[in-house]
């Protein structure tokens, strides 16, 4: 069926692009600001065309800006974030896939209750978890390490990834699994032969979701690490919290924010299509 609403097709494009402009507005502003000096911004407003290209903002933000006493910009903090996000994403996705598979296709006693409780974890507010985690980390002797953040994000991410994967795997026809079992395949073989090959859409959705969520997380990152192990979100807050006796360096702040957002932006830029495909394939029901 030709669903095209012929009359007023221009209206459709107008609305779509109008909203696209609204969506892009903050990005445009911040990109422009990253090329303006703080003096320029102070004199006119936060929205404006750069007078020149203040590349200095970028070099300062990347490698020279002083956060606390380290004047190395945000580069070391980006590295910390990577070291935390990559293992946590991989672990939580893998564990979530297996758990989702188990709950949906390899039924066992009590699976509904367990699933409900695990999913409850998605909704717990962060603030109430701060102190319990501090106590847990003390017992495990993991305070002030990146490993602590990996553990926290893996356990918390597990709730999300299990939810996504289980909702997806439940769409796999039972007959396929039954056929495999008749052929003598056990738990692992079924996963490897049948489920995993069908998984790319949901794995991609999950990885994108987890990577973004963990990369952008602030509260735990700041509380459970010190100085050198802090993730980039902590560095951004340090730049943004102006002490009482300073001028706000909007230009450098903008450049820093953009640099810190590049990994997740790239993830959505390249993965956006797969994200949609994964959702279409029934990721969230």
């Amino acid at each position, binding site marked *: 069926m030709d669903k095209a609403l012929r009359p007023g097709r221009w209206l459709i494009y107008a609305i779509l692009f109008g909203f696209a402009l609204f969506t892009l507005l903050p990005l445009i502003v911040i990109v422009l600001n990253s090329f303006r000096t703080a003096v320029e911004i102070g004199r006119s407003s936060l929205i404006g065309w750069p007078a020149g290209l203040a590349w200095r903002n970028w070099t300062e933000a990347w490698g020279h800006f002083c956060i606390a*006493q380290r004047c190395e910009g945000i580069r070391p903090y980006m590295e910390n974030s990577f070291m935390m996000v990559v293992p946590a994403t991989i672990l939580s996705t893998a564990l979530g896939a297996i758990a989702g598979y188990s709950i949906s296709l390899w039924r066992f006693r009590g699976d509904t209750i367990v699933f409900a409780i695990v999913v409850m974890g998605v909704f717990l507010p962060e603030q109430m978890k701060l102190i319990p985690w*501090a106590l847990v*980390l003390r017992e495990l002797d993991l*305070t002030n390490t990146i490993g602590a953040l990996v553990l926290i994000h893996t356990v918390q991410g597990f709730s999300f990834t299990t939810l996504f994967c289980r909702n997806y795997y439940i769409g796999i026809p039972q007959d396929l699994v039954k056929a495999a079992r008749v052929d003598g395949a056990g738990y692992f073989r079924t996963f490897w032969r049948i489920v995993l090959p069908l998984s790319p859409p949901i794995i991609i959705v999950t990885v994108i979701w987890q990577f973004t969520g963990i990369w952008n997380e602030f509260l735990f990152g700041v509380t459970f690490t010190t*100085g050198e192990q802090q993730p980039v979100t902590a560095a951004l807050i340090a730049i943004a919290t102006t002490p009482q*006796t*300073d001028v706000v360096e909007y230009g450098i702040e903008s450049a820093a924010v953009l640099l810190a957002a590049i990994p997740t932006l790239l993830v959505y830029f390249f993965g956006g299509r797969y994200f949609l495909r994964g959702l279409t394939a029934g990721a969230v029901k």
Partner: protein
Amino acid sequence: MRIRRRSLLAGAAATAALPLAVRAQVKPRVTFISQWSSGSDGAAITGLGKRLEAEGGIWQHSPVPGFTTEMMNKLRADIIAGNPPAASQLKGPEIAAWCKIAPTVNLDPLVEAAGYEKLIPTELVGLHKPQGHWIALPMQVYRTTTLFMSRPAMAKVGATKAPKTWAEFNELATAMKAAGITPVANGGIRWDDGMKLEIALAGINAESYRGALMKLDAKALKSADMLEAFAQLRKFASWMDPNIAAQHYSVNLPKFLKGEMGMLMMGGWAQGVIKNLGGKLEDVLITSAPQNEGKPCFVLNADSMIFWKRKEPDLTAGQQLLAKLMMQKDVQEQYSQTTGSIPVRIDVDLSGPAWSDGQREAAQVLNESFKSKRVLLSLAHNIAQPNQISSAMIDVLTEYVHNDKVTPEQGVQRLAAAVDTARG
């Protein structure tokens, strides 16, 4: 023969062990947590660290990005983990609250050796000895009851001197408003709103301030002075820039320096902010806020460091070194010159060129207030009350400033009610 060899061996071993013992003498080390990651506070604490290193210590400072709450979260997490820093930023009544949850170091021997206690304002001493002995040291003092006046604005209305009472202030403000100048250049952040009340009340009656805001006496909280303070606060609110919302006062400074805004009631630290913005201090008149009683009064805000008990010898040595340094005149001078505050010791000579007129004036007022027992503790900066009470009170004050439908009578009632709830 054998014995001799054995004793020779023993002697050799002892000699060999001697340099080891000397080598084992630890390098003092300090781990420190604060929120001071940048700006003049950051520069000052870094300077302190360099001084520690110059004296042979190792300085390991972990500033926590964000504000005081984030720093305290980190501190709490570290305490829970059994790994508190050797020293950390902590101020006012928090010292009393936090020392109950983790063991601290008894600094009495060091303090007595330096004869330090007589050199600090009495109100401060009590805050640092909640259990009867010194466990923390103040680092710098700020006065909150400071009045900054824009000279260009004054010229425009023909004012030649600063107002000495609230009545004079109100007259001047009305004149400024008529001339198209925004009379009050304050911002709209919570502590700014809280400060405006405390400055008003301290200027009306210092003893009422002490009773109401420091002792939380119910009668004082509902007194006529309090009502007058709220009325004055309402006036301040009406004279502020209506667009200020919840912004920092520094966004008003460019206009203030040009004379489009007239007066700023702020702590002494504003001096540093003005300088950093490229403002010239000659354009600003810095003096005490109006005092209806005509006598000097000083509302103080102080930063302090608390020392947490550690077993490691290098950390204990580091703590001793840091404490000694913090009590020294030259260290305090260096610190205060960097931040624009006043040194804690009242025997520091501020006549040199490194000090500004504003600092000199404030130090003089501190001295006089100290002698006449008119030193008060700031509510807005969490010195007078622990966070849970001051937060509740400032909630009421900031609501009052931004909601002109609340009358002064209602303001007084709400404040008293908030104190009750927060305490109960």
